[in-house]
């Protein structure tokens, strides 16, 4: 029998298996509507950050600065809000201030993206080093802006973005699917997407086929940074506060989600759809462990183990495919 499984099929099988496993271990509480809704509220932050990580990995790069950039964006939004927002403000004018604050935050993301892109594309610094540098720098700026304190207390509109529902569907998950859908369209249907994949698989060939590698890299890091900015809005809304070192454990999780979704660290491969399935798997596992009251640090160790197991499975699968081809 010839067995040929696509990555997507393997992920769907794993997802069904894990849902059944978690359901049988944790009992009925897992399938409750309220639990499913909890998951739908938790997934988007990590999901959008993972998209931000994935797009740079497609070009054989990495973006270590997404969390720092998201925190800085959140802090800028928070500072703008607290600066302009008076205690007795009409709802209408507060809407404008919220929009202004979000615009200011996203502007910061754009600047960060341009900086990363400039370093990687034009200065030819290796992505790990460039984004490591910006990560420390951005965290530094965040700490200087806040002196290390938490900024909290936002108007209802901001809280809606992370906690509200639209027609019964949690608003953040709508945002997430919007981002994922847009990314999928950009990657599959636009020249930019095709060049991103090509740049990741073979930089030289990409260059000689008439593509300006630098511009593609610049746009990639810009997209990554803007996605991190969108995640920042959801994060600050859900925490109802902003701080220089929130969510640092997300960095591992974003790499894990991207790699599980079949994105290769060497670049060139990875689909948005697979990433979404991988994210659902991670969310189900994390939720199940939480329902079983597993120690938080044990969960961290389990993420590490899953990451290695997934990488080993990928490697063995590749070996198997290659052996068959040579036969």
């Amino acid at each position: 029998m010839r067995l040929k499984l696509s990555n997507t099929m393997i992920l769907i099988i794993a997802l069904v298996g894990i849902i059944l496993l978690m359901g049988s271990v944790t009992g009925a509480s897992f399938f409750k509507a309220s639990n499913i809704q909890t998951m739908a509220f938790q997934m988007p932050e990590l999901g959008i950050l993972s998209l931000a990580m994935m797009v740079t990995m497609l070009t054989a790069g990495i973006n270590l600065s997404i969390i720092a950039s998201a925190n800085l964006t959140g802090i800028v939004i928070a500072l703008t809000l607290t600066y302009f927002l008076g205690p007795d403000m009409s709802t209408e004018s507060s809407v404008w201030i919220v929009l202004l604050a979000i615009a200011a935050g996203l502007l910061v993301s754009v600047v960060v993206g341009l900086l990363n892109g400039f370093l990687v594309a034009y200065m030819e610094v290796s992505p790990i080093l460039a984004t490591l540098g910006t990560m420390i720098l951005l965290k530094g700026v965040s700490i200087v802006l806040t002196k290390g304190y938490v900024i909290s207390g936002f108007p209802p509109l901001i809280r809606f973005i992370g906690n509200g529902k639209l027609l019964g569907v949690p608003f953040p998950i709508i945002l997430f699917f919007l981002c994922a859908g847009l990314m999928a369209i950009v990657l599959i249907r636009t020249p930019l997407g095709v060049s991103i994949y090509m740049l990741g698989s073979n930089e030289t060939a990409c260059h000689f086929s008439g593509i300006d590698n630098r511009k593609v890299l610049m746009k990639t890091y810009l997209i990554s940074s803007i996605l991190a900015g969108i995640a920042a809005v959801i994060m600050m809304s859900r925490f109802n506060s902003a701080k220089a070192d929130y969510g640092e454990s997300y960095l591992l999780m974003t790499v894990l989600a991207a790699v599980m979704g079949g994105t290769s660290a060497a670049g060139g491969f990875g689909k948005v759809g697979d990433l979404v399935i991988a994210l659902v798997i991670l969310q189900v596992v994390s939720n199940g462990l939480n329902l079983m009251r597993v120690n938080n640090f044990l969960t961290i160790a389990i993420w590490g183990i899953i990451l290695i197991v997934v990488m080993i499975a990928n490697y063995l699968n590749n070996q198997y495919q290659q052996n068959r081809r040579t036969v």
Partner: protein
Amino acid sequence: MKKFFSSYETFVLIAILLLGAIITSINPNFLTLENILDLLKSYSFIGILAIGVLFVLISGGIDISFTATATVAMYAMAVIVNNYGGNMVTAFLIASVIGIVLGMVNAIIIYYFKIHSIITTIATLNIYYGLLTVFSGGKWIYSMPTWFREFAQLRVFTLANENGGQYGLSIITLIWILLLVLAWFILKYTVIGRGIYALGGNPVSTERVGFSVLRLQLFVYSFMGWLAGIAGVVLTLLVQSVAPNSIVGKELDVLAAVVLGGASLTGGVGTLWGTILGVILIATMNNGMTLMRIPAFWYDFFIGLIIIISVSASAYQNRKKKKKMIAIEIE
């Protein structure tokens, strides 16, 4: 002489001298023997880790799990010597064995499954640290045996300042210096050392020349683990307590020091001299900020800025060199 003036290390040295001059002009306490010896003592921990990171970077890999390795090693060491007794030799021995084993785990995963070293070590960092925190319950260890405390007080030579306080070259700094000499010897005069440079330069040729990539990687990552274990003991000597969460998260600081010293992430490049300068630059900056009374929250900002400037400068130099080589080929 011309080579000396055009090398990257010389730029770092000039940066340190300039920074030192500025700090001294604001606060003359900087350029005293006491302050410098004190700095050398407190930066031994980062200095020892930096040697290991340098080896990994030269071999073309990256390791960020060493903070977790150091934490596991020092925690186990502290628990064992507190409960069963022992002496300095057993303390170092326990930490070394744990460090080497954890380092080997990294090497085995990286070699046999061809998983990128950054992904492997991100994973093992979380596994080591997560499991340690689960088993230790996150508890701190505050008391160390008397002999352990006495060892930390030892000095190679002792001087006295005008107030009658004593200072000198600490035994902890001596450990760092001895490890530097050992690392220098390995890199310069052993087959394995040359093999590590070759591996970072071109893995395929390295294998064809007859090196075993497996053995080289096992050596590099277990050497990193061993140094992490020793650094764990050194940190415990410095602060006389063990906290499971005190150093995890600082791995990028050490990486920054090594990168500031001119090591490249693409492998094959990097010198011990540069790494020492990188550590000294970070120590000078940190100490200088305190002496110049700049609030501590500016620290990350300046470090980040310096890293970006230095990696851009060395990338720019590389690009210029590459262009020159192409020009020669055409002629």
